[in-house]
């Protein structure tokens, strides 16, 4: 078990994801197909065992890359590869910055959003995790360079949570929720909510 800030962040995320699995399942059940909670929880367990296997002092980029690979190579669904693309961009930005800095967070979020939109073609307002990720990227880009990492995470989390909350009011145009029409109204998008959980885990 490592104790680097990156590992702590991801471990906290996995704990929250497992705690919240029933809520995420219920949301995807109400306006989707019910597998989102299990998918994210499965990923969380795999990431925990990856983190357990890392030696102390593993560079932040490698820690994040390990989680990215879990999502990319071992988790299916729509959400698996999309979260993988996001974490992969976090890892790349962390390599570039030399550590998980606020700048790396901003760049990772921005590039992760771009990659997710290239692959999934969702726009803000389609009721997907893009509705949380996009405002988070905007909020991070607006921060002064000197912002401490935990505060940057907090700002991103707040923006993502607000974006996620807004998804409750709309029908979906993409993802499984797009098939259920008005049944999606009143239901927060679980993918967007999980983006909020990911950032909040860094605070």
């Amino acid at each position, binding site marked *: 078990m490592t104790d680097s800030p990156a590992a702590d962040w991801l471990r906290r995320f996995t704990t929250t994801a497992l705690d919240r699995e029933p809520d995420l399942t219920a949301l995807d059940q109400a306006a989707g*197909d019910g597998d989102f909670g*299990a998918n994210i929880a499965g990923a969380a367990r795999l990431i925990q065992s990856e983190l357990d296997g890392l030696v102390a002092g593993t560079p932040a980029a490698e820690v994040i890359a390990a989680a990215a690979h879990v999502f990319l190579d071992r*988790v299916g*669904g*729509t959400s698996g590869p999309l979260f993988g693309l996001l974490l992969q961009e976090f890892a790349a930005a962390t390599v570039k910055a030399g550590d998980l800095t606020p700048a790396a967070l901003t760049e990772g979020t921005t590039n992760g959003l771009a990659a997710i939109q290239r692959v999934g073609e969702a726009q803000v307002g389609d009721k997907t995790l893009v509705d949380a990720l996009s405002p988070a990227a905007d909020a991070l880009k607006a921060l002064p360079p000197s912002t401490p990492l935990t505060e940057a995470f907090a700002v991103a989390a707040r923006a993502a949570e607000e974006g996620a909350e807004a998804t409750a009011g709309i029908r979906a145009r993409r993802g499984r929720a797009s098939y*259920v029409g008005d049944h999606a109204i009143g239901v927060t998008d679980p993918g967007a909510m999980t983006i909020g959980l990911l950032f909040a885990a860094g605070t």
Partner: protein
Amino acid sequence: MSRYFAESPDDLVDAGLAGFALAHADLVEFTPDPGHVTARSPDPRRVVGLVSGGGSGHEPLHAGFVGAGMLDAACPGRIFASPHNRQVYAASKAVAKPGGVLHVVKNYTGDKINFGIAAERLHHDGIRCARVLVDDDVATDSADIAVGRRGTGATVVVEKLLGAAADQGRDLDALVALGERVAAGSRSVAVAAAAHTSPATGTPAFDLPDDGIEYGVGIHGERSGAVRPHGPVDDLVRDMTGSLVTALTLTRGDRVIGLVNGLGRTTPLELYGLHHRFATALAEHGVALERHLVGSVVTALDMHGFSLSLTRTDDELTALWDAPAHTAAWPA
């Protein structure tokens, strides 16, 4: 509520696949990680490997259609979750032939993404890879849905016809053209009188009024938003048939292959009764039901519902339908 005979959603898939492999060891080989099923005795004339897959919970699709005359490999994901790209990549590598690999993909974002990443990796390895997308569900043909129609019951028709064509030694481009033609000529619509049991919670995935029918349900139990009363079955089948005939712009004398598909707990008596009504409704349109299949072949766990599918056919397609196939679930 009725719990599944399994310890957990993951056990439902893992024990189910292990048992499937054991039961059909003569037909298929199962690789647990990354999970995929491959055919033991594909037709030696094949020059292209046929791969499909998707979330589990739709059995016998797809593993039940792996074998001579149909798929070379299938990649089962977790319940209702697309397989991850490494499953698709490994399965494709295992069955790629000199002419490459063809992916039969149901039109869902997750499936498209995961098969898409695998295709990139295959290209990187110098393996030709193409895709046929099945998007037959008329209930999702709407300007409000940016991702287009879902892929549902007609997938098994596409897999059968492509399998027979692959056995003739057709190349990748020819198979893509054929698959696109079949998919374009296929439409389905599904209804449910009761939701499937969620393996995560052990409770019905959605509630319907006692006398309600969800018209236009998805194979992951996605509700349609349209509930109608449980009226005369003749009327229900006539409406469903009409929507397929309209979507395919069928006119008198057109020829079709029809599929009456149970979504899980629908009984054989119901399905055959629906087939009888479907045939009658098609006759009213003057459409010739040239071939048919009745059974639970593309399911949604234990949902009580059924889908009707039509595929335009001609001499070529009907001959492909009639070609022999030897898999766990194709009725020989």
